[in-house]
């Protein structure tokens, strides 16, 4: 772990409400929310892309706001409500954004899709996007290297009730 020697911190119990379910995890301070979800809770829907906040694949909702989970320390979110892609469908019915992404074929490889959908859910809750240009601008933190952008914008417009 590098050339700096420190006293190793104790694992700390971290309480999180993940997709409505209360969970307590014993985590070290440097565990990111992304790694907590994927490695400690086996919620692998949230993807690790760049791991530096540049691609948006790790986007989740923390207390209803979209954030990059790769740049979030889990220990700092003790007590927070986390919503991941696994938590969007309700009672067996897809979230309108999930259905819209299928309707518009808004993906190719699918790796960015959970982050795109969680980010779009955050965008809709924020309520600042009023047209396609504003959707594009406010989704610019989510990269799609397959280039499905036109269909992603169309899917979000559908979910927003614009088409």
């Amino acid at each position: 772990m590098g050339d700096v020697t420190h006293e190793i911190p104790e694992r700390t119990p971290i309480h999180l409400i993940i997709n409505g379910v209360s969970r307590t995890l014993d985590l070290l301070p440097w565990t990111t929310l992304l790694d907590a979800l994927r490695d400690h809770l086996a919620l692998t829907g949230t993807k690790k892309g760049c791991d530096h906040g540049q691609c948006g694949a790790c986007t989740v909702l923390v207390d209803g706001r979209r954030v990059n989970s790769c740049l979030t320390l889990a220990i700092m979110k003790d007590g927070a409500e986390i919503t991941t892609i696994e938590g969007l469908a309700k009672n067996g019915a897809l979230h309108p954004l999930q259905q819209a992404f299928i309707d518009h074929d808004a993906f190719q490889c699918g790796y960015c899709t959970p982050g795109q959908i969680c980010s779009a859910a955050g965008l809709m809750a924020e309520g600042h996007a009023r047209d396609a240009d504003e959707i594009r601008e406010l989704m610019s933190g989510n990269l799609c290297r397959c280039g499905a952008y036109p269909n992603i914008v169309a899917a979000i417009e559908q979910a927003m009730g614009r088409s």
Partner: protein
Amino acid sequence: MNNFQYSRASAVADAIRLLAADPSAKLIAGGTNLIDLMKQNVERPSRLIDISRLPLRDIEETPDGGLRIGALVPNSDLAYHPLIEQRYPLLASAILAGASAQLRNMASVGGNLMQRTRCAYFYDTATPCNKRSPGSGCSALDGLNRNHAILGTSTSCIATNPSDMSVALAALGALVHIAGPTGQRTIALTDFHRLPDDKPHVDTNLGSGEIITAIELPPRGFAENYSYLKIRDRLSYAFALVSVAAALELEGNAISEARLALGGVAHKPWRSLEAEAALRGQAATPDHFGHAADLLLQGATARSHNGFKIELARRAVVRTLMQAASATPQSQAHKKIA
């Protein structure tokens, strides 16, 4: 990422005490820049002091008609706050020109001021960098310096400050409220960041154990005639090659007050009182704007790859002042430059 200890500050005084007790500790709020740099092994704090739960999230009107913004207000909350949208739209526009929606949700106002350069050599621990490793040399001087500074540089460092928000704050004459082991003080935003000279590892004039508690905006908001124009390699989610914050007060076509700041060109937001003074009393015309741009860019020097920035900045200043004068500010969503 190296191991570190974690403390959660329960009060500002608690954060100051923890910070003063350990010179290699760092404050963390949004974490958007610090965690990234820790993953790169550029930042290796022994302890993170979590200040994210401190009560510094209010936006309050000051007795003189300005606004006091708590250091922990998220960037997005500030940009969309009704008082900012109505009275300080230049600040809202600059914030929305930076980063992504997710990062703006996470990043704090104080953290925005503390973000470090995006110079690729600063990030690459395999290369010399005086900012990361004092005395090791500057790889950018004769390296890939297309994105680098043209003003206020030194032979030690040509890095730029990456913030958009700070450029607008500089133009608006914002103040920074600071608390530390010896009490509280307030400095101008333009005195907060420093030029690299022979100590590029020191980004700001924040002292040991000090913490930003608030940003204060003076009453004058320039809500009628303003624009923030950001020129970059992509249309969104990229750091500026050059950005301009322009704000005018007009009486007819005559300029009664002018503010002008550049981003992406120096180690700090670049403002010239001389350029602003030259605009006062003049007609709002491209010729006068060009003269102000020349004054603002006085002393600009290029390295091998960034010479284009000097003319780009000059043209961007004129264009942004025209946008401000005609009350057609640059949209951050609809990208056509008016």
